[in-house]
């Protein structure tokens, strides 16, 4: 099966300056930067960009951020979770303004990608900000024709701290209402007295089994989030009989 490879075979590896055209607050902790990237050749859902900040004294800090937007979107959107003790995210969330420039290179990464010409069921498992690259996949799929979407049914299991931490909450609810995507949220730190009617626990074997695909369906799984979350989920999927080679992981590092 051929895949669009132009952007992968000749990636634009050079650092370039992107322009911030819009900033959106998604949750109290997460902001989306909408970028105009000159000469952008497009990307595949799941890829990321490297972002570089250079201080006046020459000190450099570099981080990778998953692209949140669909390849069909002419702008590149990055959703940044603000880490209180972060070196880069506080700048991106608090200081950066519309009109500012941002140094980045990409798109990067051919391993953790999904394209809508890949048939077969898909299970997306997100922990916290791990939803970002998976949202790009969901958004990309939303642009496909109905018969194509029908050949790649998707299920999303998204673990967040509290209801107010669910990024893209309304858009995900709308996707679920369209009927061809199952979306399940589970909250790990929601106050017991709140009105939340959904799941309230860390993901476990029973939840993955209930919300995911039967192992016999040979679904592709994409698991993204903090490292401990990803390892737990990936190991449980293997325990449930899923083929390890069809489980792709993107670890984000320590739990924030």
């Amino acid at each position, binding site marked *: 099966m051929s895949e669009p*490879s132009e952007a*992968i*075979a*000749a*990636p634009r*590896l050079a650092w370039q300056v992107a322009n911030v055209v819009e900033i959106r607050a998604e949750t109290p902790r997460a902001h989306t930067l909408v970028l105009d990237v000159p000469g952008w050749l497009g990307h595949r859902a799941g890829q*990321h960009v*490297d972002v570089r900040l250079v201080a006046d004294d020459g000190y450099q800090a570099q981080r*990778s951020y998953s692209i949140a937007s669909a390849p069909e979107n002419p702008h590149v959107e990055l959703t940044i979770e603000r880490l209180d003790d972060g070196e880069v995210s506080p700048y991106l969330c608090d200081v950066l303004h519309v009109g500012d420039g941002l140094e980045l*290179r*990409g798109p*990067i*990464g*051919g*391993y*953790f990608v999904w394209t809508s010409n890949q048939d077969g069921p898909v299970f997306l498992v997100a922990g916290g900000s791990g939803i970002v690259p998976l949202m790009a996949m969901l958004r990309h799929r939303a642009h496909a024709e109905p018969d194509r979407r029908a050949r790649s049914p998707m299920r999303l299991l998204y673990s967040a701290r509290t209801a107010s931490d669910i990024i893209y909450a309304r858009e995900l609810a709308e996707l679920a209402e369209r009927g061809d995507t199952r979306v399940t949220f589970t909250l790990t730190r929601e106050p017991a007295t709140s009105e939340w009617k959904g799941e309230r626990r860390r993901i476990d074997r029973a939840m993955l089994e209930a919300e995911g695909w039967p192992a016999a369906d040979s679904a592709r799984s994409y698991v993204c989030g*903090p*490292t*401990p979350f990803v*390892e737990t989920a990936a190991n449980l999927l293997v325990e449930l009989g899923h083929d390890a080679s069809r489980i*792709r*992981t*993107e*670890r*984000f*590092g*320590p*739990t924030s």
Partner: protein
Amino acid sequence: MPDQMRLDGNAAAGQLGELFARDVTTALATCAGCHTTAPLGALAEYGQNMGVVLRCGRCDTVMLRLVRTPHAIHVDATGITVMVVPVS
């Protein structure tokens, strides 16, 4: 090495791309320690502040080390016996 720091090789794709001039996250690499073959994107990645360290997911052998200095990229690939890079 605390496991919380472990990422996937895909996170190093940009730095690897600087060296290889192409995306190598789907390239298959065979471990010199245990001969397991896996995509680079799936290897265990450590050393975010030092460069790139890719370890075999089975036996923990360091397969690739990459350190960027202002004028050079230092590469130790002794942990890889064979690497197969797909080209379109």
